[in-house]
């Protein structure tokens, strides 16, 4: 194989030379295919690994940190919760239905690969403005794909987020998070162990799906040549996944496995070599044993195929029959394809012929890591958004905000997802700021996913801090205390200094926020090169968080619940208009920087809110986010079906529509609010009453609010 072929596969000349150096000769086709994937950005994290090492990964409740297929935290009584978020951006930009569906499939496998039963999915989406036909198409099909896959496998989709911003027009983001439940002692690792043990592939047969797909796709900017990459889309089959899931868990239940690993990006190549690397062993694989969907596949194609719904396990030779029996019962066709050796080499055979022979370490660990060369941009990177709102009267601004795509109700999306399967969903979407799921030990967990890319574009450091705080605030409103965090770093081309700067600053923000909250990062994913012809996406670190609450009966609610309750704004809330949703609707350019946040004060406010919710002292709690205070009040009105009488100076736009972390709209009897005021700032702003929002200079009926808030329905005709 030649250097030019290596370059065509996405390697640099220097990397190619490095490969030749490490194996002592030119790689053949199979070896080059394997290297090109394992040394891709997607698998090797070559532009992000050094940064990721700066994130805190320790915590008292940590069970499994980064490095495994999913991270996990302890939720008590022997139970652990596993979770991870992953991107499927490029595949979804090419084929949104299958791209999003297989994104869900992939993250489910990561979770059951460590032995956890997936119990929840959340999805985090970014599209261009819905005025664009392409954005509507992507939205429609991505949501349908997510629903199709998760609903069919029977994992509740309990939350998510979607933003519409012009910079995502050419490059949508589809991130999916999965949460699983496992008894701690049942967790299984992916390290291959035991020389002579057998490698069993089970699940779907192998076709040409995604050959040169995800890895190459995820490592190259999408240009006009998209069409050429199309034939490689992966197709998902959730029915196969469901069988694979049950089969995997049964294999573990019966104690038949030494190691388990899913096949994701780079297929058999990455799954097998990573198992070998972690276990410090070698593997011998015969591609001829791999059940194929298409007869004439080349060994290299078999090694890199990204056919979905496949798993790899290691078992002792004496247990092979039992393993294959369980596979047969679940109709997922298990096949022994190789065994563990002590060579620390990946030896690939086609029958008797050795077609590849690479040191595991060279393949998995030796990819050069690059230093970023960050430079803050001298001029704004992003155009000002288009002006879409002219109104200035508070009522019209409020209705405009409620109808804006980033604020409007997500019901038309989430109703396409089964949020109740499993019978443990205590809070569904729009009932609370975080989803709440009951746990087998009588407690519950809260889950949220968040990340406002526009704020990060304004200020990569503070925007990333805000994403973490927002997620934690959502949990606090549900009464949950964060235990751990996962993240997906969606950025443009890191080889460009300004993108490198965004990435570096955002990771610094994530790390600082996590340290300030004493939260470990349990895992995550990085998606780079998210750029279209028109420039990079907004830098979008998506943060997923899992927290615990002792008693699901006291899970918080967003909606006002009782006429006569006092309404208050609580917390160290210092709103500002620049960078807000209202500023966007008014077409204002992004500010260069966001106000500094007193993270410790926000943390204290979250603790106070959480305690009050857990104690049953608050009727409702909702954090102030996009659209500011008045929008948050309106959302609590709509969620509870109750109006509000407010004493607020609505002419003070900064106060009622400005944004910033640390604010909570709460409702409760006055005495409870006085008690809360002993811990954090609390200002009573009105009373829960009637069927409208009213106050000096403000009147809008619940029906008017509801109609505005329902704006997204029109996108799903």
């Amino acid at each position, binding site marked *: 194989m030649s250097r030019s072929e290596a370059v065509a596969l996405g390697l640099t000349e220097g990397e190619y030379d490095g490969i030749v150096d490490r194996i002592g000769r030119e790689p053949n086709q199979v070896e080059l295919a394997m290297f090109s994937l394992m040394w891709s950005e997607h698998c090797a994290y070559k532009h992000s690994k050094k940064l990721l090492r700066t994130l805190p990964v320790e915590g008292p409740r940590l069970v499994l940190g980064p490095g495994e297929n999913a991270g996990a935290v302890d939720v008590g009584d022997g139970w652990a919760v596993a979770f991870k978020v992953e991107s499927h951006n490029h595949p979804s930009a090419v084929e949104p239905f299958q791209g999003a569906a297989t994104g869900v499939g992939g993250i489910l496998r990561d979770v059951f690969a460590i032995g956890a039963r997936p119990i929840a999915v959340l999805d985090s989406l970014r599209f261009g403005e819905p005025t664009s036909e392409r954005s509507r198409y992507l939205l429609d099909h991505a949501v*349908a794909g997510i*629903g*199709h896959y998760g*609903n*069919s*496998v*029977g994992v509740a989709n309990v939350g998510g987020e979607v933003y519409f911003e012009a910079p995502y027009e050419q490059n949508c983001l589809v991130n999916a998070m999965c949460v699983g439940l496992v008894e701690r002692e049942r967790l299984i690792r992916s390290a291959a162990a035991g020389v002579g043990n057998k490698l069993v592939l089970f699940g779907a047969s192998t076709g040409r799906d995604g050959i040169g797909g995800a890895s190459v796709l995820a490592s190259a900017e999408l240009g006009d040549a998209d069409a050429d990459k199309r034939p490689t889309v992966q197709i998902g*089959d*959730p*029915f*196969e996944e*469901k*069988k694979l899931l*049950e089969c995997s868990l049964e294999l573990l239940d019966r104690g038949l496995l030494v190691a388990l690993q899913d096949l994701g990006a780079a297929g058999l190549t990455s799954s097998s070599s990573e198992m070998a690397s972690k276990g410090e062993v070698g593997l011998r694989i015969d591609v001829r044993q791999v059940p194929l969907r298409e007869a004439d596949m080349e060994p290299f194609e078999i090694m890199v195929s990204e056919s979905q719904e496949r798993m790899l396990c290691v078992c002792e030779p004496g247990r092979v029959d039992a393993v294959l029996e369980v596979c047969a*019962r*679940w*109709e997922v066709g298990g096949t022994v394809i190789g065994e563990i050796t002590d060579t620390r080499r990946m030896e690939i055979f086609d029958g008797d012929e050795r077609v590849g022979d690479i040191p595991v370490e060279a393949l998995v660990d030796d990819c050069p890591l690059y230093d970023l060369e960050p430079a803050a941009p001298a001029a704004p990177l992003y155009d000002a958004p288009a002006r879409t709102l002219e109104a200035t009267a508070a009522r019209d601004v409020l209705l405009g905000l409620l109808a804006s795509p980033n604020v409007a109700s997500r019901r038309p999306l*989430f*109703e*396409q*997802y*089964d*949020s*109740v*399967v*499993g*019978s*443990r*969903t*205590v809070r*569904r979407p729009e009932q609370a700021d975080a989803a709440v799921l*009951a746990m087998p030990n009588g407690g519950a967990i809260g889950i949220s996913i968040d990340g406002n890319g526009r704020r990060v574009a304004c200020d990569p450091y503070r925007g990333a801090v805000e994403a973490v705080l927002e997620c934690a605030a959502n949990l606090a409103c549900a009464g949950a205390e964060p235990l751990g965090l996962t993240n997906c770093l969606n950025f443009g081309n890191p080889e460009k200094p300004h993108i490198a700067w965004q990435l570096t600053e955002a990771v610094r923000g994530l790390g600082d926020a996590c340290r300030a909250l004493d939260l470990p990062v349990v895992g995550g994913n990085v998606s780079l090169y998210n750029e279209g012809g028109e420039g990079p996406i907004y830098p979008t670190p998506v943060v997923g968080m899992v927290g615990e609450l002792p008693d*699901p*009966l006291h899970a918080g609610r967003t909606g006002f619940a009782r006429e006569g309750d006092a309404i208050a704004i609580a917390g160290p809330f210092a709103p500002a208009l620049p960078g807000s949703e209202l500023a966007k609707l008014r077409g204002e350019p992004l500010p260069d920087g966001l106000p500094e946040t007193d993270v410790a004060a926000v943390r204290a406010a979250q603790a106070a809110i959480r305690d009050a919710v857990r104690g049953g002292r608050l009727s409702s709690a909702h954090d102030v986010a996009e659209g500011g205070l008045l929008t948050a009040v309106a959302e609590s009105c709509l969620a509870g079906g109750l109006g509000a009488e407010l004493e607020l100076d609505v002419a003070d736009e900064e106060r009622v529509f400005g944004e910033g972390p640390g604010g909570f709209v709460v409702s409760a009897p006055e005495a409870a609010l006085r008690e809360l005021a002993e811990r954090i700032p609390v200002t009573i702003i009105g009373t829960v009453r009637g069927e409208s929002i009213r106050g000096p200079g403000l009147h809008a009926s619940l029906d008017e609010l509801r109609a505005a808030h329902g704006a997204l329905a029109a996108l*799903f005709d």
Partner: protein
Amino acid sequence: MPHGGDRSVKFGVLQFPGSCDERDALLACAKVADAELLWHGDRDLKGADAIVVPGGFSYGDYLRAGAIARFSPVMESVIEFAHDGGLVLGICNGFQVLCEAGLLPGALLPNVERRFVCRQVDLEVVDAETAFTNRCAPGELLSIPAKHQTGRFYAPDLDPDLVVLRYATGHCFNGSQDEIAGVRNAAGNVFGLMPHPEHAVDPLTGSVDGLSIFSSMAHAGVAV
């Protein structure tokens, strides 16, 4: 026991490779009686007094929802069991399986809006005398989640006496004929509905109204 079920009754809950709701159904049954999962590939109903065909996607729902599942070995036994008068409840996909198997009248078509919808709906008890609703009051409203893409009930020339549950006004999102949510067979021992009573058996998750379906069956199971 809150709903006066009877431990001497035993539910069998079918499990297909793609069932999603069988564990939830099993737990719901276990609240009122004994319950056990029955594997799709086995013909043995293990002495069950009542059968639940749960929701999910049985065999992936390829071709048509429930089309392939009806030919499974366990369904052969269930068909026989039903013909002998045994109580059979089909939920969502299970309802579709029972229609495909000819145990219930009609068929289920794609929702008028084509999309999958997951929503808490109110169901009106039209007939409170059946083996599946004897613990309900006539006209009572049950709040139960519905979640499906193929739930538009269609049965030309349906005997109106067979209608057991109807969607309350404004709650029928799928376009079902006469807003029918659940029907029984003429003999009264087989019942199917699209919404999911097994997800409404615990106040924590929003409603306990689904429990009365299971406790009615447990009650009727003793009587049989």
